[in-house]
């Protein structure tokens, strides 16, 4: 026990006895203990820096090949061209990325058109209306839906939704690969995310706000839509942007069910291709390293990365702006 109060190992600092004979020097020699603490801290810091290195590596790998890509394809053609056919022979190749961006946007829009109403309505139900027993059944169902791998959704879209639901039940003349199927199933994928984040936000609204409104004669609907919903707005907006971000970055559902034709039209019965699906499709094929097709992976990947980052930054900014602080 006495050891705890003994001076640390190492020679005692030069003692100039002060007023009460106590050592007054403030110089500490490094003890074995503080050295090992410093080492541990350094190791942990290195681990943390690896995450920064990861981002750096993503940016570097995307940027270098993208720059190489733009040496062969003029930026104007990339950004404003309307034909995307990099897999054709050299004379027929076109590198206008607009069809891919449009495909991404169109499919995500269909998906969000499904996911936002379903997700928000479910969130309001779970947070405001559902009795505890129902909640304990529905919440696990939503969590299960959120945990299903995306490839299962893709399988479902291609082998069941298109033939049995779209063609069979609803009698819509769709091609095998079509935007309607891919988009709706994409919405199904994203809906649990929106529902759970929005529900968390709404549950965080203090009861006093609701009960004040009830006391003033509001109905449950009025309380839900006019009190709780606006109070939780920042979290709800975060949920929507998170959902949009997931929809834009989704690869496999669109790859399997949406087809491989980049197209600039609005016909939902035709096949479309998104940026992420294109990347996976091309990487799957046999392309020589360093060829222009290989570089398209990076150019499109860079575009996708920038879009996702912008959405994420917007989300952080919006959440901060609308966040309500409760007492």
């Amino acid at each position, binding site marked *: 026990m006495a050891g705890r109060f003994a001076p640390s190992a190492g020679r005692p600092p030069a003692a100039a006895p002060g007023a009460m004979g106590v050592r007054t020097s403030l110089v500490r020699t490094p003890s074995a203990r503080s050295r090992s603490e410093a080492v541990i801290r350094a190791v942990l810091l290195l681990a*943390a820096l690896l*995450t920064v290195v990861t981002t750096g590596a993503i940016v570097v790998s995307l940027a270098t090949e993208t720059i190489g890509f733009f040496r062969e394809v003029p930026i104007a053609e990339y950004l404003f061209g309307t034909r995307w056919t990099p897999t054709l022979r050299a004379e027929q190749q076109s590198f206008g990325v607009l069809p891919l961006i449009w495909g991404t946007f169109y499919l995500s829009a269909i998906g969000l058109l499904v996911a936002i109403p379903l997700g928000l309505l479910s969130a309001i139900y779970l947070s405001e209306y559902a009795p505890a027993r129902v909640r304990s059944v529905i919440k696990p169902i939503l969590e299960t839906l959120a945990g299903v791998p995306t*490839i299962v959704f893709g*399988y479902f879209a291609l082998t069941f939704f298109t033939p049995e639901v779209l063609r069979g039940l609803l009698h819509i003349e769709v091609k095998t690969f079509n935007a309607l199927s891919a988009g709706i199933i994409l919405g199904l994928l994203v809906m649990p995310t929106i529902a759970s984040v929005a529900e968390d936000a709404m549950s965080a609204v203090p009861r006093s706000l609701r009960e004040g409104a009830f006391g003033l004669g509001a109905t449950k609907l009025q309380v839900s839509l006019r009190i709780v919903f606006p109070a939780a707005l920042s979290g709800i907006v975060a949920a929507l942007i998170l959902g949009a971000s997931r929809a834009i970055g989704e690869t496999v559902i669109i790859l399997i069910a949406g087809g491989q034709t980049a197209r600039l039209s609005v016909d939902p019965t035709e096949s479309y291709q998104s940026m992420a699906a294109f990347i*996976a499709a091309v*990487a799957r094929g046999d392309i020589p390293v360093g060829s222009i097709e290989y570089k398209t992976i990076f150019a499109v990947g860079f575009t996708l990365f920038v879009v996702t980052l912008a959405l994420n930054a917007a989300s952080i900014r919006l959440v901060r702006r609308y966040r309500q602080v409760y007492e």
Partner: protein
Amino acid sequence: MTGAQIAAAARSQETVFPRARAGQRVTDAGFRGLMYGAVGLACLALLTLLFDVARDGAPALSLDFLTNFPSRFFPERSGIQSALVGTLCLMAITAVIVIPLGVATAIYLEEYADHTRWYNRLVEINIQNLAAVPSVVYGILGLAFIVRGPLSLGNVLLAGGMTLALLVLPVVVIVSREAIRGVPSSIREGSLALGATQWQTIYRQVLPGSIAGIATGIILSLSRAIGETAPLLVIGASANTLFNPRGLDDQFTALPIQIFTWTQQADRAFVSLAGATILVLMGVLLVMNSFAIFLRNRYEQKW
């Protein structure tokens, strides 16, 4: 009316004041219908999905299915041994990489980092951004840096494991931080007051106190990793491999890749095999998630 009566009326959804107008009641009922419809549709979708997969895949499930290798020409003789072994190996490699790195980063950020310093804030913002990056971009990272580029490992098992590890690392960090944050500061302060160093406090008080949350988060992240298809597609996992990976530097396949390959076949028999593989994959995920929930319920620390 007494306060208790008002409170009771509020809870029972009736108002203390005169009943709402008929128009308002119709709107209320209509909205309720919409909500029930939304929730019902979501449940119906999940049930249909499970039913369809089971209907397609259950006939093909058998012990042979688990032990055979995939055959390009004979669906009745195909199996998923290579894919199952590949997935399990990938999970092990990912765990070995991501657990120390993720937990170390979380410890640093929660216990050591001074949050007013710019470089620590940079790390935090960076992790949030990384968590939002699409998985296919991680595939490109793996392709450019690990399969080709500086590391040039080729499209081998280790490359797949490293790519998946990078994919789930941000999530592990975020979840571990939450768990560490759950340990009250009184525990830390008591330990320090008794003369322990910072690392001793972390190692003997904070980590054991947060281990349940960390373990749950790790298992859930791993189950997300093995369900991912896009990064493996981009880095070049093989399809229809006839062998189990013989080492870290061998080619590999995984359950999602096998599902992907078989789903795209024209022959309906292969599509049924894809359904069976999905059942196996979801079985693995179910076991992992149940284990995570069990850990959380059993070992969760209530302070």
